[in-house]
C-alpha cells in the first residue's frame, strides 16, 4: 500500500513539474513567407535554375554528397517542364496538363502517366505514388505557409544576408523531423533563393540544399515547350508506383 502510494505521488509530482511544450513562431518570419507565397500564387508562369546538393548515406563512407542542376519551367494552371543534369542522370519531366512524361536521355527511355489535374496536384500525387521528385516543389503549394506552421516547433527570422550576391531574408525553423532554413530575396518579388533541410530523423542527419537562381517572372512560354515527342528509337518503360511493401 505504501509502495503504491509512493508511486502515485511520484507520478503526480512528475505531472505537475513537466512544463507543456512551447512553440515559438516569429510573425516577421511568417509575414516574409506569406509575401513569397502570395507572389508565387499570382505567377502565371515562371522559370528558374535550381542547383541542388543532397546527401546519400553510405555505411562505409558516411554521407556522400550528390548534386543536380535543373531548369524548371512552369505555366499555369497545369504545365511543367523540368530538365535535369547531374548525378541522377540526364532526364526530362514534362507535363502538358493531361500526361506526365519522364524521359531518360542517358538510356533513351521514356515512361508516361495519365494525370489530368492541376500542376500542384500532379506534383503532389506523382511524388507520393511514384516517388518522382520535383526540386523545391514545396514552395509551389498554396498552403505552404500553413504547412510550415503546422510542422514547426520554432520559426524565426535571423536577419539579412546575401545569397548569390543578392540580399535575402534568412529564416530558420525546426520541425518534428527536420530543421530547415529559407533565404527569400529582399526585393519586390520576395522569391525563394535558397533552401537547406537537415533531416534529424534519419541516420547521420543527411542534408538537402537547393539554390534557386535566374528567376524569370511571367515569361511567355509556348505550349509546345511542354509537349513530349517520343525521341527516335526511345524505349517505352512502365513507371511503377512505389511498392507498399518496400523496406
Amino acid at each position, binding site marked *: 500500500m505504501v509502495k503504491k502510494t509512493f508511486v502515485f505521488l511520484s507520478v503526480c509530482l512528475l505531472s505537475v513539474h513537466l512544463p507543456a*511544450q512551447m512553440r515559438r513562431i516569429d510573425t516577421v518570419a511568417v509575414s516574409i513567407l506569406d509575401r513569397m507565397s502570395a507572389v508565387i500564387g499570382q505567377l502565371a508562369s515562371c522559370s528558374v535554375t535550381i542547383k541542388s546538393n543532397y546527401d546519400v548515406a553510405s555505411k562505409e563512407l558516411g554521407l556522400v554528397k550528390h548534386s543536380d542542376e535543373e531548369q524548371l519551367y512552369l505555366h499555369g494552371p497545369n504545365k511543367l517542364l523540368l530538365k535535369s543534369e547531374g548525378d541522377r542522370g540526364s532526364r526530362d519531366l514534362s507535363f502538358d496538363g493531361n500526361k506526365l512524361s519522364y524521359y531518360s536521355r542517358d538510356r533513351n527511355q521514356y515512361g508516361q502517366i495519365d494525370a489530368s*489535374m492541376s500542376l500542384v496536384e500532379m506534383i503532389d500525387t506523382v511524388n507520393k505514388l511514384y516517388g518522382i521528385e520535383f526540386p523545391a516543389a514545396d514552395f509551389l503549394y498554396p498552403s505552404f505557409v*500553413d504547412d510550415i506552421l503546422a510542422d514547426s516547433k520554432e520559426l524565426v*527570422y535571423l536577419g539579412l544576408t546575401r545569397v548569390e550576391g543578392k540580399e535575402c531574408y534568412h529564416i530558420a525553423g525546426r520541425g518534428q523531423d527536420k530543421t530547415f532554413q529559407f533565404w527569400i530575396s529582399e526585393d519586390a518579388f520576395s522569391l525563394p533563393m535558397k533552401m537547406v533541410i537537415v533531416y534529424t530523423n534519419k541516420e547521420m542527419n543527411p542534408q538537402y540544399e537547393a539554390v534557386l537562381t535566374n528567376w524569370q517572372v511571367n515569361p511567355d512560354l509556348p505550349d509546345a515547350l511542354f509537349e513530349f515527342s517520343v525521341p527516335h528509337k526511345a524505349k517505352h518503360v512502365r513507371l511503377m508506383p512505389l511498392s507498399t511493401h518496400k523496406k
Partner: protein
Amino acid sequence: MQIVSKPTILLLLVAAMLALAGIPVEGMAQRFNHGGFSRPGAPSQAAPARVPQQPMRTESRPAPQPVRPEMRSAPQPARPEMRPETRPGAQPVERPSINGGSRNYGNHDYNRSYDAHENVTVRQNVTVRDHVNVYHTGDYRGIHPYYYHPYRPYYWGPHWHPLGFFLSALATDAVLLSLNNQRYYYDDGVYYQPSNGGYAVVPAPIGALVAALPPGYETTTAADGNSYFYFGGVFYVDTGQGYQVVGAPAGAVIIQLPVGAVEQNINGDTLLVYNNTYYLPISQDGQDAYEVVNP
C-alpha cells in the same frame, strides 16, 4: 525445377523497371508535409506513345531528342505581372496562376499543429540568442523589413512636453536629479533644466535614475536580448532600484515617436531621426511601428 513465386516475380519486375527508368527507388519525397492534394486512386499508366516510323539508321548511339529552334522568348527583365491592354468595355484576360493562389495570406491558424496539446507562443520580437549569436553581424540595419508609414507625432497626455518646450513653473511633485554636476528636474517622464527664468524640456540624461515610469510606457526587447522600457522618446532599464535612462538600443521596437522627429532618406529608405537616434518604419503584426537602427 524450383518455381519462382508470383510476388517475387513482381518484385523483380518493379526493381528492374525502376532501375531502367532511372528513378531513384528511395528518393526523398516532398520535403514538407502538405495536405489536400492527393487524388484518390493512382493515375493510370499512359499507353505507349506511337512512335512515328523512321528509316533504319546505322548509328549505334541513341538519337538525341529532335532539336527545335529556341522557342523561348528573349530573356526579359523580371517585371510585375502586367495585364494586357483591353478596349473599353472588354473584359481583361485573367491568366491562371501556376498554383491557384496562396492560402490564408496573413490569416494563419497558429494552433494548427501535429500535437493539439502543445502551447503556441507567437512572439512579436525575435530573441534567438542563447549562447550563440546566430544573427548576422555587421551594421545593424534592422531585423524587420522596411515598411514606410506616415509619421504621426504622439503626445503622452497633458503633462508630457516635447524637447524645447518652456514652462514658467514646474509641478510641485517634480523630482530634482543631480547627475554629473548638472541639475535636472523630472516630472511625468519629462526632464527639465532651468532656462531663462523658467524651465525647458531637455533630452533625458543617460544614467538618470527615476523611481517609477508614468502610465502608458512600452516594453520592448532589443537586439541584445535585454528588455527595455520606453516612454516619451526615452529608453530605460529596470535596475531593481528604479528605472535608469539608457541610450536607444538597436533593435528595440516602439510604437510611438514624439513630435520633433525628422524624416531622412538613407539608401532609398525614409527613416525618422529623433534625438540623434534613427528609427526604421516597420510593420509588426499589422501595426505601424519603428525599430531602432544604426544605418
